[in-house]
Every structure is written in C-alpha cells, then in structure tokens.
C-alpha cells in the first residue's frame, strides 16, 4: 500500500514539474515587415463598436490582401484581465483598441507588447499626432509600448433642474473652488433635491481614485502625475487639500459612503457627477445637464485647469505575425479622417495636438463637446511602469480608510501611502 502511494505521489510530482517546465515555450511573433490578414479587438460599447466596424470595412475595401477581422473584446471582469490572459496564452490579437495605460507596464513586462519605438517612423508619428501629451505614455526607458489614442477628460456634470429647484443659478453654478463646491453641495442636499450632492464610487477598486482624487489633484497641482521619477508626489499641500475637500463631503454626508447600484446621476440620486465626454450621449434626453471643470482650492480660469485623462490607447501585441499590416492599420485608424469619425460616433477625444482647430466644425455643431475638446490638451495620465496597479491600490486603500470612512487623519494616510508607493515604485 505504501509502495503504491509513493508511486502515485512520484507520478503526480513528476507530471506537475514536467508540465511546469513546459511554460514559456513555443509561440512566435512576427516582424514589422510582415504583411497579411490580422485580427483586432475593440471595446464593446455601442458607439465604439460602430466606429470599429466602419473602420474595418473601410480598410478592408482598400486592402483585399491584408484583411482585418474586427471583434469586440471578449467579456471578462475587466478588459485588462482578458488581455493579460490572452498574452499568457499567446493568442492576443494584433491590435487592441481598449488598452488601459495602467495595465501597459504589466503587459510590457509580460512580453506581450511590441515596442513601437523600434518601428521605423513610429515615434515621430506618435509625437506628431499627440504632441507633448504623448510623453506621458512612454515607459521609464522612454519607449512607446502603446499608441496614445483617445481621452475622456474628467469634468463635473451637474443637473440643471435640481440646481434650479434648490434655488441655485443653473447657468452659472458656483462650483469652481472647494469652498463654493461644498456650499453648493450643502444647499442641494438641504433642499432635498437629491440624497447626495455627488456620488463617486466609494468602493475599493484600484481605479476608483482616478475619478475622485486624481482629477482634482491634477487640477490643483497644475498637471502633476501622482508618481514621478519613481517617487510619489501627492503627499504635498495640494494632495492634502484635495483629500480634505473630499473628506468634508463624506463627513458632512454630501457624498455617500455606500455604492449605488446603478447610475446615481441618471437616477436622480446625486445632483452632480464626475465624468468624461462619454456621458454626453449617455445622459442625452435623461438629464438636463451642464458641465464645469473640476474645482480647485482657489479659482482658476478654465483654460488653466488640468484633469485626469481616462484615456484608452492602442497596443500592438507581440503574438501578432503580420506586424507590418498591424502598424499600417494602426496609422490608418488614427488618421485625421478616422479620428473625425471617432469623434462623431463616440464623442471621445482623439489625443491630437490640433483637436480644436482640426475639427472646429464639429465643435461648432456640437457645443456640448467644446469644453472637453479644450480640456483634452490638459490631461494627466496614471504613472507608467509594471507596478502601476499595485501603487494605485495602495493609494486607494489609504483613501478609503482616511477620506471615505474617516478612520485616519488624511495627511497621515497620504504620507503613509506615499512611503509605501515609493517602495513599490522601485520594484522591478
């Protein structure tokens, strides 16, 4: 009996380690000179699917030998998980038009992305299209492993009807400074127009700070990333002020500590929301809204206010064989004409230097998007590197404890988070 147990254990162990040894084998990537059919993934929201389909159809009509197969990104908890799994499995498509900058560092570390800087003319193409903003999308070595594509500059949306009902001026709302914002919030809640003045998701996911702390910190600091040169920046007076502002909203019950299962702004559970231009189409016909830049401690002209980008970029994945075609499609899909279609079909802002002038007619015909077009040139991205998500999670944990639930002094929490993030940032 013992002999048999030993035998079975040995077989299991040998099998496990033999299989372990298999990992990392096989698979081959192509080169930028290879051409042929490719597959691309794009986001699964209605507007981006419409854009993706027309772009693919337009390319295929002109390139019969380099056909593109367009697919919606497969469903998963998040797109980043799906992409990460596809990289590991070696079956990622050539291009993904939904690559989150926060995940790019990890994908690069996994060997899943092609270094665009090594493709002839790619760096100059990216810089010519996106200008200075493109700098934020380089890795720490100065290379592009992502093509900056489009942003959703975060602003404050407010419900004009609720403001009117609360006796506030719906056309010139006092929301530019922290003091004004809090005073307006108090009036809204006191008037009973909504249970919350504003309700950013008070949940623990790493990315949620991109929609409460980060836009206001970008605005207050004049465009600082929360980590620069492997050192956190946010534990400064600007960061403390932003944290205290939000802590006051939570403490005074102007913002809820509990997540709302649905869209609080659309459902009338919050009088304001912190959102990007995608919201224009979503709230059309549902909410009589207006928009203003995010607040700062002292009033600043709108043209000086920075915010979080909420960008999604394009990755060229190393599993791709026909990388020459992939790069050509990437350029085609970020051309002036395709960017215009992106703007028209999705309302999201192509990351172009000349956005406001190139598409002046569009912004004239769609004034609701004009502020976003202007704001797009002043956006801040998450810090680059393979540890971005871990850093953002460390920040979020400190934020939850101190700002949302008030269990720790905000300054002490930010200082502790900064120390932790400094350590994480130095990890390979």
């Amino acid at each position, binding site marked *: 009996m013992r002999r*048999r147990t030993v035998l079975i254990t040995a077989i*299991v*162990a040998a*099998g*496990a*380690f033999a*299989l*372990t040894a298999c990992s*990392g*084998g*096989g*698979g*081959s*990537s192509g080169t930028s000179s290879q051409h042929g059919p490719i597959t691309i993934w794009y986001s699964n929201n209605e507007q981006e699917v419409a854009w993706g389909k027309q772009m693919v159809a337009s390319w295929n009509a002109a390139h019969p030998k380099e056909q593109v197969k367009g697919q919606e990104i497969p469903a998963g908890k998040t797109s*980043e*998980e799906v992409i*990460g799994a596809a*990289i*590991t*499995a*070696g079956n*990622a498509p050539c291009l993904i038009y939904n690559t989150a900058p926060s995940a790019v560092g*990890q994908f690069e*570390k*996994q*060997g*899943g992305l092609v270094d665009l800087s090594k493709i002839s003319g790619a760096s100059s193409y990216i810089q010519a299209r996106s200008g200075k903003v493109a700098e934020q999308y380089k890795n720490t070595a100065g290379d592009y492993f992502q093509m900056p594509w489009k942003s959703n500059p975060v602003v404050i949306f407010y419900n004009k009807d609720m403001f009117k009902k609360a006796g506030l001026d719906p056309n010139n709302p006092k929301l530019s400074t922290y003091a004004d914002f809090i005073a307006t919030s108090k009036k809204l809640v006191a008037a009973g127009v909504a*249970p919350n003045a504003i309700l950013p*998701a*008070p*949940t*623990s*996911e*790493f990315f949620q700070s991109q929609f409460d702390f980060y836009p206001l910190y970008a605005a207050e600091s004049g465009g600082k990333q929360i980590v620069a040169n492997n050192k956190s920046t946010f534990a400064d007076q600007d960061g403390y002020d932003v944290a205290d502002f939000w802590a006051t909203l939570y403490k005074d019950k102007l913002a*809820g*500590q*509990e*997540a709302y*299962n649905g869209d609080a702004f659309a459902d009338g559970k919050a009088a304001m929301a912190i959102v990007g231009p995608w919201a224009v189409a979503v709230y059309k016909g549902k909410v009589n809204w207006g928009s203003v830049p995010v607040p700062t401690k002292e009033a600043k002209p709108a043209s000086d206010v920075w915010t979080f980008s909420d960008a999604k970029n394009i990755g060229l994945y*190393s*599993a791709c064989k026909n990388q020459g075609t992939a790069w050509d499609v990437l350029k085609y899909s970020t051309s002036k004409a395709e960017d215009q279609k992106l703007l028209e079909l999705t309302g999201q802002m192509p990351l172009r230097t000349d956005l406001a002038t190139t598409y002046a007619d569009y912004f004239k015909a769609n004034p609701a998007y004009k502020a976003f077009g202007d704001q797009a040139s002043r956006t801040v991205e998450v810090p680059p590197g*393979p*540890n971005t*998500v*871990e850093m953002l*999670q460390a920040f979020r*944990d400190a934020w*939850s*404890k101190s700002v*949302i*639930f008030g*269990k720790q002094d905000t300054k002490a929490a930010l200082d502790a988070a900064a120390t932790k993030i400094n350590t994480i940032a130095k990890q390979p």
Partner: protein
Amino acid sequence: MTSTLAERQGVVPSSGGATPGRGRRKRRPLGRNPLGLLFSAPYLLFVLAIFAYPVGYAFWISFHDFFFAAPGAQVARPFVGFTNYVTALTDPAVLRSFANVGVFLVINVPLTVVFSLLLATALNKATRAVTFLRISYYVPYVTASIAVVAVWSFLFNGHGLVNSILGPLAPSPSWLINDHWAMPIIAFFVTWKQLGFYILLYLAALQNVPKELYESASTDGAGEARKFFSVTVPGVRTATVLVLLVSTVTGANLFTEPYLLTNGGGPDGASTSPVLIMYQKGIEQGQPDVAAAIGVVLVIAVLIIAFLQNRFAGGRD
C-alpha cells in the same frame, strides 16, 4: 451485518485455498482489482489535470520570482525561497483577510450545520408541500450569485428594506459599510444561499437512519427532542462531518460575496478574504508568486481545520 469476526478482521482463507496471512499473498502490482483502476482512470486523470497539477504548480510558483509571460518571452524565474511567503504574511491586508475569513467561518459553519440539519429533519417529517419546500430551499443555491447579491444589496443598503423596517434601530453606518456587520452579513448570506445543498445531503443521510431506532426510543418514552439528539444526530454523523468539511472548504474560498456585495472587500478591508487578495495580487497587480504563497498558506490552514473537524466530529467512523 452477518459477517463473522474473522471475516471482519480480514483473515478468511481465499477461494484459491492459499494459506491465510499477508506475507504469503501473491504480489499484484495493480492491486486486487485492476479493472477498478481502469474504471477510475478517467476521473483520476481529471483530478491530476484539474486539481493536482495546478496545486503543484502553485506550490512551485510560490517559491519563485514568477509572473505570467507571453509564450516565447525570455523570462528569468529565480528560486526565492520563502520571500513570497514573507511578503504575504507581513502584509497587514493579507493578515486581516485571514482574520476576516476566520470570522466568516465561525459564523457560517455552525449556522450551516444547525439550520441544514434542523430543516432537513423537519422536511423529512413533512407530509404536505414537501416538493415545494425542497425546491424553495434549493432555489437560492442554484441561482446566480450576481442576482441574489443584488437582492441582498437592496435589502441591506442604507435606504434598504431592512433599515426601513428597523427605523432608528438600524446600525450606523449601514450594514454593508459597517466594519462590524459587513462580514457577518456575508456569512448570513452564504449560509442562506448554500443551505439547500446541505439540506439535500442531510435528507439523504436521514434515509439511512433505521426507523427501528426511533420506534425503540419512543417505546422507551423518549420525546421528540430526545429522539433528535439521541438518534438523529448520531445517525447522521457522517453527513455532519461532510457538511463541516465542505462548508469550511467553500467558506475558505470566499470571493464572490466580498467582491460583489461589499464592493471589493469594503468597508476599508473589513470584508476582504484571502482569495480576494489573491485575485488582486495575482491577476490585477501581476504578482502571482505572492498570490500563490497566500494560496498555499490557505490550503494548509484549511487542511488543519479539516483534520481537527474530522478528528473531533468524525469519531471512529
């Protein structure tokens, strides 16, 4: 029931007339029933591929500097000893998650055993609407978690039905964002959701408790409570051990409820579980090595608990 002592002790001469005793048995490398091995081979392969291999791989990962990489990528994965274990076990969030799941198990496992046994006993005696009741208890178990989580969220949020009924007695902060209540609410939720499965286990076990024992107990003047404690409880002891083990193992793997009901282990980590942290570390943050170390610690902890349960609740069975 009719076997002799000699038969039970395994010293009955074989039909071949060989002399009794282990020492003289003919050696059979594939055992006494080689056909049995053939029949069990598909499941054995399944277990090896789906359970044994991942466990072995996770164990290997936990001792290396490991991250998921594209096929063909040149990646160094050096042996790092216990570094990942030290990283995991010195992280306050990880330690808290183990404490949280401990709280969960202390509430969930006893409630599961008690309620499923009581309800199964009642169902076993019910004469009316038996099918309806069985289905009613089983429906939450087969319903998708996302759907029932939405219902519980509606019940227990700040403006939910429960707080409306409780009025001033409602806790503040509300249940799902209350440090003290978040984990117990998850434990109650899981108990309620899984109860139908455990009731079925007990119902099956109750069929094997001899009716004669109840009749004898009645003859001796035992009431319903005495019969329950002296006949039913000992009669379903094997099922109880199974319920204890299964509810502990599934409870230790808690993920969906803190992920959905308390939105990622909130408030402020009060309902995080080790598996949720593993998900964050391994999938979101690209540290499967640390996640694997947490997983190995969890497996060892569950094995110790299961051993103790089997030792103290299993008796000689």
